[in-house]
């Protein structure tokens, strides 16, 4: 009787376990909206094996020589979640990020469809809220800041409870996914658009695809004076602040600032321009609705429109300090139609730094979020 009971129990558990066992997660190939049927098995094989040789798998993340990532931090974030026998917690990316950003960093994790805006797709190497000029990669501090403070009004949570090392580890893994993603895009275009002869020349791929993607991450760290915008908040008294807000209000309506087009005359996000998409969704948009519907079949997520910010709501995804708003106006929001108004290397800005501050304070006044402390007091508090 006892033997019968235990053998039945074992069979039941065995069946349940077999039925529920899942395969280890793999990186999903980025076909950029192409019909998967148009990719031959040989091309698919060439792409996946080349990428695996350079970057390993989600469980065993590796990087090719020349890619300067901290492997200790990388290995804390990679792999399945849980502690090892030395009590070190691993798999941080899968624990904290993969449910939304996906195992491949494609922004199409299991919960992505429930979110508006969608989670960031790291594979284009474009990040919306940074302190670096348009076209440059974010600094480590930019990514750490977003992870630590989250994005108000979106599904991106604040991870302020995580230890600093864990956040650094997640930043390193995001950079890894981004470099891998950019290499993947380079490879996909090389193999599918330019019909490169197979097998691929690994050395050429390393030099022309992997290393440029990796080096672009180093630029803001090596030359911060060129690539990073440092806002210096003016120390204004109340009277000066009110004057700046009045100037900002005028500026807001000026054609060169282009604010009204999207944000509307009163800053309620109700401008004339409503057909707005970021670069991730622009790729899903066909010329006709029919084309858009057909394209949608080849993307994990349907097309999603952008909503210009309603300043009166007081919600700013990239942060609501005067410095944050200054950076948004100066640099713009990368990957979106929000342009940068400040100067960038080789490009004169449409607004001067003083004008950007005027505009920033006007926007904050609409949101009723004017700072109660001076820049000096704020920096001392920090």
């Amino acid at each position, binding site marked *: 009787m006892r033997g019968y009971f235990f053998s039945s129990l074992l069979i039941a558990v065995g069946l349940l*376990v077999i039925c529920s066992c899942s395969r280890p997660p793999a990186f999903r190939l980025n076909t950029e909206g192409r019909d998967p049927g148009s990719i031959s098995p040989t091309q698919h094989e060439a792409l996946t094996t080349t990428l695996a040789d350079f970057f390993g798998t989600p469980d065993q993340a590796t990087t090719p020589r020349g890619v300067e990532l901290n492997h200790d931090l990388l290995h804390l974030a990679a792999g399945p979640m*849980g502690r*090892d026998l030395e009590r070190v917690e691993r798999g941080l990316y899968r624990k904290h990020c993969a449910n939304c950003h996906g*195992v491949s960093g494609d922004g199409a994790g299991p919960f992505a469809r*429930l979110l508006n805006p969608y989670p960031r797709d790291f594979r284009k190497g474009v990040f919306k809220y940074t302190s670096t000029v348009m076209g440059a990669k974010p600094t480590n501090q930019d990514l750490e800041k977003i992870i630590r403070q989250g994005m108000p*009004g*979106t599904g991106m949570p604040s991870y302020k409870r995580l230890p600093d090392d864990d956040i650094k580890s997640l930043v390193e893994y995001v950079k890894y996914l981004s470099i891998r993603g950019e290499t993947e895009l380079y490879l996909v275009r090389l193999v599918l658009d330019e019909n490169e002869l197979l097998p691929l020349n690994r050395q050429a791929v390393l030099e022309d695809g992997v290393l440029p993607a990796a080096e672009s991450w180093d630029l803001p760290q090596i030359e911060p004076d060129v690539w990073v915008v440092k806002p210096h908040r003016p120390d204004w008294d109340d009277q000066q602040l009110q004057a700046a807000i009045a100037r900002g209000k005028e500026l807001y309506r000026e054609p060169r600032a282009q604010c009204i087009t999207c944000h509307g005359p009163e800053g309620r*996000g109700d401008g004339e321009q409503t057909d707005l998409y970021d670069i991730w969704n622009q790729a899903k948009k066909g010329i006709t609705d029919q084309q858009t519907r057909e394209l949608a079949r080849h993307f994990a*997520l349907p097309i999603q429109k952008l*909503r210009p910010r309603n300043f009166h709501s007081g919600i700013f995804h990239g942060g609501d300090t005067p410095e944050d708003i200054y950076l948004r106006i100066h640099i713009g929001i990368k990957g979106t139609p929000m342009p940068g108004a400040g100067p960038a290397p080789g490009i004169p800005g449409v607004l001067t730094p003083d004008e950007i501050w005027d505009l920033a304070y006007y926007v904050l006044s609409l949101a009723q979020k004017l700072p109660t402390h001076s820049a000096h007091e704020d920096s001392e508090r920090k």
Partner: protein
Amino acid sequence: MQTADCPQHPGKSLSGSQQTWPYRLVWAFWGVGLATIGMGHTVTSYSAGMAIPDWPSVFGHFPFLFPLHEWFRHWDVFLAQSHRLIVTILAIFSLILTGFFWKIRWNPHKWLATAVFILICLQAALGASRVLLGDIGVAAIHGCVGPLCFGLITVLLVVASPSYEQLCRSHHEATRRRWRKAVTVALFIAGLTYLQLVLLAQLRHVLPQQPPIQALLIVIGQGILWAVIGMIVVTAAMVLRKPLCNVMTRKFLWLVIGLYCLHLVLGLSAWIVNFNFPAWFLSHVLAVEYTIVQGGVFQVIVSTAFALVSSLLFAASLALLICAAVDRGANVDSDHN
């Protein structure tokens, strides 16, 4: 002093103390079951299922000799180890209770207690498999079997209660048709609340490689189930209204209604603390500046409470089903009479 028939020998009455102390024992067992399932849901909310990588040992230590300072060093380890220990207590308790009911030969208590013990063993084996295989798919099954186990413990508690004995002996004016309706709605509530639990377990143990459409379909399924359960609960309130049913059945009906409302509120709150307010709500209805704090106390409490209330709702609906079904004997008797 309360008296009731002895379940082993119908007709022979038991004194109050003879009847109530096994009931108190089952209450204690139910309490441990609630603590276990609550701890299990907390482990899931904190993603602490793999905080201890080995089983049955704990970082190489014998489970009961795991050093206390190590236990409290990491919150996730504390949760996982506490969950394991409380499950051990529950299993031992279950074994004792099963042996006890078999010894005193109470029916159907001994069979129910045996079923609970088997389910606890199955659940423990699934928990162990989840750790040893490191597979989140197994965790989802573990999350489905847990509430089933707790539901069965609740049924045992209901069956062991003195009020249940009184309910078995009571007669009222209900017709067989009304009884069928009552049992059917109770059955639907129990079945659908369990289905909702299964869907919830899939959301709480989502596979990282799962396509985004699946989670959306699960959420839509949950929404439809909520609406359907709501309608059935309203139907149940009409079918089981006073004076057509026993006071115990009505109590469970009110409990189901209360838990359903709480479940609804917690479900919406759990959405907000995990995914934030919907975009249309932020842009058109009310501007709310809110940032989700991952692993924050508020997020964990709301998510855990939602899962726990789901389990309680299922357990209460099972209790309602048992009470509604027991009326059959009384009705059949009254029909015969």
